């Protein structure tokens, strides 16, 4: 399952790169792309694990930039 998630107020390009690297290392992530310019993330993970993977991914995002609002 592939889903596009909006990251409102994603303001730091370097953090976006770090988020992408961090999330891609999470278990269950098939592929991930964090675009600083489009302010969004495209996350791909197996359907049954998706909610759990997304939770973990959001944690990673907030670690690098706490004031990002995640909109699924």
């Amino acid at each position, binding site marked *: 399952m592939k889903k*596009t998630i909006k990251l409102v*107020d994603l*303001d*730091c*390009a*370097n953090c976006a*790169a770090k988020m992408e*690297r961090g999330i891609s290392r999470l278990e269950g992530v098939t592929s991930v*792309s964090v*675009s*600083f*310019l*489009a*302010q*969004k993330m*495209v996350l791909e993970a197996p359907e049954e694990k998706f909610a759990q993977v997304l939770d973990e991914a959001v944690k990673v995002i907030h*670690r*690098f930039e*706490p*004031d990002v609002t995640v909109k699924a």
Partner: protein
Amino acid sequence: MTRKQKKLLQRILAAGVLFTAGMLLPYLLPGGLFLPRLELAVFAVCYLLIGWDIVWRAACNIREGEVFDENFLMALASLGAFLLGDYSEGAAVMLFYQVGEWFQSYAVDKSRRSISKLMDIRPDYANVERAGQLVQVDPDQVALGEIITVRPGERVPLDGQVVGGHSFLDTSALTGESLPREVEPGSEVISGCINQNGLLQIKTTKLFGESTVAKILDLVENSSEKKARTEAFITRFARYYTPAVVIGACLLAVVPPLVNGGDFNTWVYRALTFLVISCPCALVISIPLSFFGGIGGASRCGILVKGSNYLEALAATEVVVFDKTGTLTKGSFAVTAVRPAQGSADRLLELAAYAEEASNHPISRSVKQAYGRPIDRTRISKVEELAGRGLRTVVAGRTVLAGNAKLLREAGVPFTPEEEAGTVIYLAVDNRYAGSILIEDELKADTTAALAALKEAGVRKAVMLTGDSFSVGQKVGTSLGLDEVYAELLPGDKVAKLEELLTALQRRNPKAKLAFVGDGINDAPVLARADVGIAMGALGSDAAIEAADVVLMTDEPSKIATVMQIARKTLGIAYQNIIFAIGVKLIILILGALGLASMWAAVFADVGVAFLAILNAMRALQVRQLAPQNNYHCLLT
């Protein structure tokens, strides 16, 4: 400005006032023991006001084990300056760092907005009749085959067919084309166009999700996923840059004092200047921004580029391979000569039109079009299609052969072969030669100019592949000045030929790229095989939009040169930014190590460079001088 930006701006202004006050303090008050303490107090308040969030975030990140974090490094550098007694510099580092952050956020936001404005083709609503009343609904809610009403000035929300009304459509947001398109009942219309003057009733032929407008938006939004090699390089560089600079700073602080017995304070100060320049921000923002701008600029000209990697490949393209029909030529055939063996040309054309009546081949259609009168089908009694040869039709009791030379030769009819290049239909009535009709495909209006522009844009070789005969291929090839022409190719042969050209190119220059241009209808395998597959005239053709890497919404070949110029310009800007940003940082690092650059210079190297690089990146969005003359949408930058 977003709320976040406004808040930061207020803090910057307040801190700026405090900072100025701190700087003026020595001039306003008499010196003494009391002054340094007051200075410390003012700068410390200024520092906390502007940098509390950075320090807080740094502390959080340390707990997570994230040492090479820019917040942490900035906090360390500025607090270090305080400890060394350089209060003003400590506060300045934080203040200017935040000013830089604000500018970045503002500039990026602005270019984000101007790019999304370019792609502002999403229809907000559709007018449909529900329970006898015309209501506005979300385009998502419209069913297949439902009738929608589009008033003048409104955007067509879904693809469909006009069932009532007459109007002109402005397609410029999709195609970059300024000329409005006339539509009447029966016309196919695509979503995203703006209805100019008449009321239109449209029967939808696609759901919103499958409509052209949804496809295009999806494509543009996802274009940032396919990253250019340059972008990947920057990401990798950024990963090693920060740790390298931080390790350098540590060594600088410790080694010289231990070896030479230098003053610890001096070397720690120099190490702190290192930390200030340790963020690769300028690069990480400006390079993707350049590509994003280039893609946005291209889409303003009616050219969709599916990823920045294709922009990069286009800039390195040395060979462009064209399909002939529908790409260089119009793909619509026209009768150019009628040569009867005896009798009038009109009679021969009539005969041909009757003989070709049953066929729907483009060539047959062109004959019927040239004849232009209704055909009495009762006079045709028997039609036999002879594959690869032509047709045998019985018209008013007489057997008419219409087809190529092979057909007549096999029937044993003597005839005079035509010398001219083109498609020739030979006709025979009851095995007696009746004459021939010459049919030719016309070149598109801007084909010649397009090829000249391509050569100017740095393409070394223009090649044409065609399934047509050698003589036709040669004729087109010489009239256009193409470098190579390969004719009589079956669809499978085209892929093989392209592979041959690819290997030849790679042997000569491994970095050079090859682009293939087709109409995207039956050349999907060739489009996929080329480094860059360009489909043209793709408006409304899903297959072409899917198969190609670059989609030209109109069918003008001159757009290929436009997109190549945009690609080259974008790459140029990206390289300028890389060299500028890395260069300035390197110089400041060296000067900092030698004690010649103060923390002030370091802050400039970090924030100023990022700011200038962003401004430079935004130039990629400007496509004015690259646009074809007739293209007003491109001109409006």
